[in-house]
């Protein structure tokens, strides 16, 4: 609208105008826009590349890729186990994301956390959705109609492994606690308490 008006005004003042002027004008504007959009996208993708992920590296997924694409192909059951592990990890991440969602939202609204963390959270959520879709597709490759059987197993595996991990951490925790509380173990295995009279 504004452009049209200016063109009309210029036409009134200057009687003769080259045919190329509007073409050059449009070209310049378009080139500027294209250059801007290319740069903008590049920056955005770079930012995505360099953004610190919300979770640590997804080892089960890496392992599954590695085994699936390795040559010769591993036993099918091993591959299936790797897929199950990948699914269990995805369940764990989905649960974690859901767990923190109310807090992240509340903190973000209050301004306690910055855009960066919030965006990382949102990217993680999107990635997780895609990951679930990919796992579903992979499962269907093994045998159609396995999903209803697969998914309940994933949850059990995820929880059971968490439980076992916690249990096997008992020994390390013990040493850490003793260290933290400055309790020493004497040679015959008796604890020496620093703040207790002998």
């Amino acid at each position: 609208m504004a452009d049209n008006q200016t063109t009309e005004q210029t036409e009134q003042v200057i009687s003769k105008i080259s045919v190329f002027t509007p073409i050059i004008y449009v070209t310049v504007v378009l080139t500027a826009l294209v250059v801007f959009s290319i740069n903008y996208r590049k920056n955005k993708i770079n930012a995505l590349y360099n953004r610190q992920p919300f979770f640590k590296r997804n080892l089960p997924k890496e392992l599954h890729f590695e085994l699936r694409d390795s040559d010769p192909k591993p036993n099918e059951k091993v591959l299936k186990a790797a897929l199950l592990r990948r699914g269990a990890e995805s369940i764990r991440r989905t649960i974690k994301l859901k767990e923190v969602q109310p807090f992240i939202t509340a903190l973000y609204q209050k301004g306690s956390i910055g855009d960066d963390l919030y965006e990382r959270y949102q990217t993680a959520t999107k990635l997780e959705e895609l990951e679930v879709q990919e796992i579903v597709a992979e499962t269907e490759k093994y045998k159609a109609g396995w999903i209803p059987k697969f998914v309940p197993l994933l949850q059990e595996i995820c929880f059971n492994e968490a439980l076992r991990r916690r249990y096997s951490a008992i020994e390390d925790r013990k040493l850490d606690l003793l260290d933290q509380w400055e309790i020493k173990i004497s040679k015959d295995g008796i604890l020496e308490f620093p703040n207790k009279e002998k």
Partner: protein
Amino acid sequence: MNINNINIKNNNNNTTQSIMSLPITYDPITKIISINESAQNDQELKEEIDQLNRLSKDFINLNSEIPESPEPSKTLTPLIKKLVTSGIDAQKRGKHHDAIKQFSLAIDMASRRSRWEAFAIQLQELNLILMARCDSYIMTKNWIDAYNDADMLLGTQVNTPENFLRRATAASNMGRLTQAKYDLERGLCFVEDDERIKTQLGVVNRLIAVENGDL
């Protein structure tokens, strides 16, 4: 695919390790994945590979293509129960060291269950054994182990006041009086008039007063 690439790149940035070259070797005969010498220090990868090997072993031992249901194994359940009952017997006879051995064995046996067996059942089983083992630790005055067992119990089962009593007993005997006091008070929130917790709280309060020089 695009998203995958981004993910790969991210991983690259953090760990300087590309997705396609994890330091692992697969043995087609034993069907076991092992970690290469170069990456022996990577605890995370080690743990993950252990978990995967366990799961694939469970899978290979399974006759059907996929586990039909998360029902617990029928062969392991009686074995575990037997170990637990013999542990409890030893506990009743006052042989706490034997009892602890039996309970630890039972836990090891329970961890041999396939990972897809129902979690609710596995959790309950582990909790029961841990409670019994914790009591035996307390009886043998092995406070740090008792504390650790009770700590895990409280992580999985908060609403049992006895677990607070267990952790507090262990903590107070290791001289961590304030912590014991908090635990007992939390336990009392679940059952207001539990005599054992009340008595223990009285003891702990007295100890704190002595430590502060008030008594």
